[in-house]
């Protein structure tokens, strides 16, 4: 494997790399100016579509295709929402991009807005990112001053305003329709689809929602071209006609029990083991890995034996995980209890479930309470079956919820129990020698007292 030179993270380590002057010195905004001079929006859509760029926010949907879902000849306004509510546990690539190279993100945003004919873009920023907030706002101000935002940008006739909106720290706001509701000032309860945001999004107008890293990729595709983009990553599997391939560079967030945690840029398709050994300096303290989260906690778990799976859009699915997600790898060493891992995962999702759909609201909280009981030494083997049943029935895929949060909550449950059932059973038998085998229904309820 040839040494890969970072593109998206070019500015990392450059002094004052976040300023407009520094970004221009690296060739920034030249592509935008060329597009504004020479291209029509449809051509930019075609460019991005032909590059095979897939959304970096988690679902991996083709970005160019998403743009084409906007209604043709809509009188406007059309909105572009930038999803910077990065809150998947383990994920911090958007933060690096916003803090160290905000202009790359803004150039991608302006190009995308031009392509989608949006005249207003909202950046929905995670509340916990104050540094990103300051850097992005400063970069937006610089762009206005330099005539890269506002009315009639560079005399092209294209106008764009960007508003930076800070969220209020809720995981569900990263779901695109939850984000839209929150942006409108409402409770972030994801909307029922259809209609999809491309038809009816922010303020009931056609809306595109893209991730920060996706927009950075758009900027780089505009600058370096489709051929460059497709020279990186994994081409489509010829045996699977529905596989669009996994092209381009990807920011992998490596954390957990590794020697050198951090955000690393690598071509899509790097294996988990390469990532840990080559970039992360191996598992920490000379220990061995037990498992790893491939792309944020909601994607499930790799066992150590599955570490040679490529981290592209198709890879994690081959070993029973939900997908690549945000490519946030969290390594778990062999001294860590998988029961504790699952408890932590359930605690997160029970806390973050928005509470709209019954199966997710009650399923996440029930699974948490079951794991609390198991950890307290009162587990039963039957609990594992119930946990699996919750995991299998909760989510968009079985159809029981509106958004994907429940699928994300279900996958760690399913993966952990299916892949580490022995460890769960050992733990339950060891900590509850008297009652692990009980399968009786729970006794009748306590009698409810008067008011």
């Amino acid at each position, binding site marked *: 494997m040839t040494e890969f030179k970072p593109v998206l993270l070019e500015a990392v380590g450059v002094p004052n790399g976040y300023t407009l002057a520094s970004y221009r010195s690296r060739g920034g905004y030249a592509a935008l100016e060329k597009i504004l001079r020479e291209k029509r929006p449809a051509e930019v859509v075609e460019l991005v579509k032909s590059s095979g760029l897939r959304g970096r926010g988690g679902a991996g949907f083709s970005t160019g295709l998403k743009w084409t879902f906007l209604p043709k000849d809509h009188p406007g306004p059309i909105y572009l929402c930038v999803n910077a509510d990065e809150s998947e546990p383990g994920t911090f690539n958007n933060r690096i991009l916003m803090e160290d190279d905000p202009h790359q993100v803004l150039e991608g945003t302006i190009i995308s807005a031009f392509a989608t004919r949006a005249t207003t873009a909202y950046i929905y920023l995670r509340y916990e990112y104050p540094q990103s907030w300051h850097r992005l706002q400063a970069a937006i101000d610089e762009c206005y001053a330099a005539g890269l935002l506002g009315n009639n940008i560079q005399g092209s006739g294209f106008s764009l305003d960007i508003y930076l909106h800070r969220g209020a720290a809720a995981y569900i706001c990263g779901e695109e329709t939850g984000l839209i509701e929150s942006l409108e000032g409402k409770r972030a309860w994801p909307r029922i689809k259809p209609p999809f945001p491309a038809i009816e999004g922010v303020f009931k107008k056609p809306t595109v929602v893209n991730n920060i890293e996706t927009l950075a990729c758009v900027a780089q595709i505009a600058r370096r071209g489709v051929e460059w983009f497709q020279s990186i990553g994994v081409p489509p599997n010829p045996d699977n006609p529905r596989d669009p391939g996994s092209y381009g560079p990807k920011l992998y967030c490596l954390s957990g029990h590794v020697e050198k945690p951090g955000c690393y840029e690598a071509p899509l398709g790097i294996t988990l083991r390469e990532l840990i050994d080559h970039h992360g300096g191996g598992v920490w303290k000379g220990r061995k890995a037990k498992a790893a989260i491939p792309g944020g906690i909601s994607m499930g778990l790799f066992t150590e034996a599955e570490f040679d799976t490529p981290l592209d859009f198709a890879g994690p699915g081959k070993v029973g995980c939900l997908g690549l997600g945000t490519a946030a790898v969290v390594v778990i060493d062999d001294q860590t209890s998988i029961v504790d891992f699952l408890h932590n995962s359930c605690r997160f999702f029970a806390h973050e*479930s928005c509470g709209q759909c*019954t199966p997710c*609201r009650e399923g996440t909280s029930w699974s948490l309470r079951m794991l609390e009981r198991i950890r307290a030494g009162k587990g039963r083997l039957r609990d594992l079956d119930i946990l699996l049943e919750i995991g299998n029935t909760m989510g968009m895929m079985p159809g029981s919820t509106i958004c994907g949060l429940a699928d994300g909550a279900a996958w760690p449950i399913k993966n952990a129990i299916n892949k580490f059932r022995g460890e769960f059973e050992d733990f339950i038998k060891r900590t509850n020698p008297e009652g692990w085998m009980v399968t009786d229904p729970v006794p009748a309820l*306590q009698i409810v007292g008067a008011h």
Partner: protein
Amino acid sequence: MPTVIVDGHEVEIGADERLNCIEAARRAGKEIPHYCWHPGLSVVASCRMCLIETGQRDSATGKVSMVPKLVPGCQTPVRDGTVIVTESEAVKESRARVEEALLIDHPIDCPICDKAGECLLQDYHFDHGQAERRADIHAFTSRKRDVGPTISLFVDRCIMCTRCVRFTREVSGTGELMVTSRGAKEEIDVFPGFPLDNKLAGNVVDLCPVGALGDKDFLYQQRVWFLKREANVCGGCSAGCSIHTEHNQDTVYRLKPRENPHVNTWWICDEGRYGWHHLHDSSRILAAGRRPTGHSHGNAEPFQPVEWADVVTGLRADLEQAGRLTVAVSPMLTVEEAWMLCGVARSIDPEAFLALGHVPIRGGDESFPGGFTIRGEKCPNRKGVEEVLAVFGAGGRTWNDLLAHVAAGHADAAWITAGYPAAWTDAATAESFAGLPCLVVQDLFNSPLTAHATWQLPAAGFAERAGTWINVAHHAQSFRQAIRPPAGVWPEGRLYWNMLGRRGLYDPVAVRRQLAESSPAFAPLGGDMPETGVDLRVRQLA
């Protein structure tokens, strides 16, 4: 016609009807259980109780392709060839899971819950739930807090369907209710200092599928399985909302809206909802009486009780003897009663002066974002009485015309029908009847007129009447008597029936048919009246 296939049975729906799977399945007699969906509110598809399997039948090949996962019936529109499966194993399993999930945090305090007996959570659990409780979580207790002057919230009973929240946002437009917190810790609440206090607030209790929202007026008054319900019409204003009067042993316990797309859709206002308490007021007039001297002067003189049989004859004799008769026909009377009253009056004095009784007005009409309107005219049947008066050549005559008529000395006797639930006249107005040789007052409560009355007759309240009211939009609704009036009270119709010399029990349906035959204006009332009523302006078109 588009055809929908529900569990293998084909059902035709209207060509331009936009139905969801729940509505379409209902046409086929299949009930898809649901909590959050309500036809009068927006679709949120959040309770997930209505998950079903759907598919599409290809019109050319007849081949059915199914959606590979469960979908919410409320959110899924049907079209020609839509296949709905409501009883598959996957659907049953999903319903059992949702019931189980909803009961995890529910206190199951049915024995002390007012909703028990009409609770969807109970009913659906019985139909779709499972007997075993697998969650070993101790349920909460019945935490209660007031969310408004009329409504209590039992926090832990709530299943978060958000019907109430949507109602205050979409129908009343007041937006007091909201969802706080997240996940399983979610609660319905109001913002401090902004209680649920609007003129439609009571509807949230009807909307609540479980016992979370309680109406303080009804709370702990009666177990719902003791209640009997009668399809009635609200007499609170000229909107004439369709209601159910829920009663037991001749006592009304609550009023509930009755769905009627032509009048009130699914709602009623709080004024109407709580506007039944006067029926059981201890100060009601409960017996017919006559001042023996025949003089209306000297209000200290008590009324002597008169048997109803003697009222029928004695009243006619008194009025015939007095001479020129004038009659105020109250807009609280039914069309049948008004028609018979006019007939009685003209049989006593063929020249009798007939006029519409006092029309109470309080404020103007008040409309809400959801389309509901509370009328300022606080009587149910002005339109109907006006039509009846027109039949007798007295169209357009008002209460003020009657007062002028009496003041001009054209009357020797006056028969004032009233029956208003609240005070309606003042001493100065009453004084204008002071010199009359014979004044008959038929009312629910004593009023300044009582002092001058020769005859005092009790009136019936709205739930004690039967007949037809015609609302402000010319919509006629017939209803039956819900409860018997208090002992000693004859509803007006019974008195007039007897004074007309008719035999047997008072039969409002027969009177209505007769009226419809004799007067073209009332022709649409001739046949059997549908529960939702008929529009009087629709003359028989055929």
